[in-house]
């Protein structure tokens, strides 16, 4: 049989962002991955930074001095916000992925209502909570550090 070449058409990382109907859940999916990677990066940096203590008091203080720069303060807040999002969305995902928030199978009658619609209130509720916690955190974070 004649075998013609096929052209690869995999979306790769771009596929996280492109080619969808852009449902609310897809944003959460992407943010969950990004915040997860962000927290992991922070964790590695954290080990690296705190390990500078073994190089003596001087190095430690120098490093701490750098970390008081506003950019790092902002970064720290970003880690906090990412953590809040990741934790709350994680709880939502656990509920969904163990089948507790997706409803029962139903006959598809047009216009279709899928499990995505069923779990949406949970998704919205959890994100409202995340925003509130992030704002409360912001107030405390910047007031304490600024004042």
């Amino acid at each position: 049989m004649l075998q013609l070449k096929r052209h690869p058409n995999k979306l790769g990382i771009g596929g996280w962002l492109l080619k969808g109907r852009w449902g609310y859940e897809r944003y959460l999916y992407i943010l969950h991955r990004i915040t997860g990677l962000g927290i992991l990066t922070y964790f590695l940096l954290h080990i690296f930074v705190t390990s500078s203590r073994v190089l003596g008091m001087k190095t430690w203080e120098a490093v701490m001095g750098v970390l008081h720069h506003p950019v790092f303060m902002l970064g720290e807040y970003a880690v906090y916000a990412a953590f809040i999002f990741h934790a709350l969305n994680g709880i939502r995902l656990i509920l969904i992925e163990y089948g507790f928030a997706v409803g029962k199978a139903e006959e598809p009658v047009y216009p279709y209502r899928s499990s995505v619609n069923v779990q949406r209130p949970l998704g919205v509720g959890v994100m409202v909570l995340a925003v509130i916690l992030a704002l409360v955190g912001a107030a405390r974070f910047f007031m304490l550090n600024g004042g």
Partner: protein
Amino acid sequence: MTNERKSCEVVFHVRRFNPETDEKPYWQQFTVKVEPGMTVLDGLHQIKRQHDFSLAWRYSCRMGVCGSCGMLINGSATLACNTQILDISDRNLTIAALPNFKIIRDLVSDLSPMFEKHVAVLPYMLRDDIQEMHEPTGEYYQSPDDLLEYLQFTYCIKCGCCMAACPTMATDDAFLGPQPLAQAYRYTIDNRDDGTDRRKKAVTVEHGLFRCHYGGECSAVCPKGVDPARAIQLMKKQLFFDFLKLTKHKTPAHVLGRPEGVERNPKIPEPPPYTVEQE
């Protein structure tokens, strides 16, 4: 807003690729006169008739039943025959082959990896009473509630739209994907089936069931309302309870024998004779 629609000219931006002559896909534009009621599939026919007879795509039923015409229309995976052009645009339309599958030619994507994964999850009834399966003496008992448990997932037409929209598929070739996983659940939850353990082995592979993290896209794009995301989460639930030993052992549905003392209604015709030789 009025529902009145007028015919207009729509520019189709079509992603072309000919394996014999092209190194990589390119975009080509065609202007199509669109009448109200025309589907994207009709538009493609128009192009073939009036502009370029070499344009290739796959279709058969023209009514959202066969699952052949899945393609990427204005960025989302859907059926060309099920999409009214004027519903989505009266100016520009981009059409490309379904992503996450290799392109055979123009809008034809190679769905065979999906079919292979589908076969891998054992999408058929698994039971021990082989004799009964081959020469049935009656029907297996099933209540309307039992039927509802899996009915939704039987509407899958294997168009591949869910596989193209899934963000996990985009970075993980080996992921079984929404279509096969939903079908694995469809059979596992069927009360006539007794293959949960075997199917469990097939779906809990490294790139299997638990790689789904609910992007929800498969269910959003499914043209038949199959809701693969729900099937996948419900299957995880089933396996989770199974792992905790909280599920009762289910005995597969028994055979409902022919009722005794009842005459067969002579108006019901006998089945036609076999057309192939029986072993």
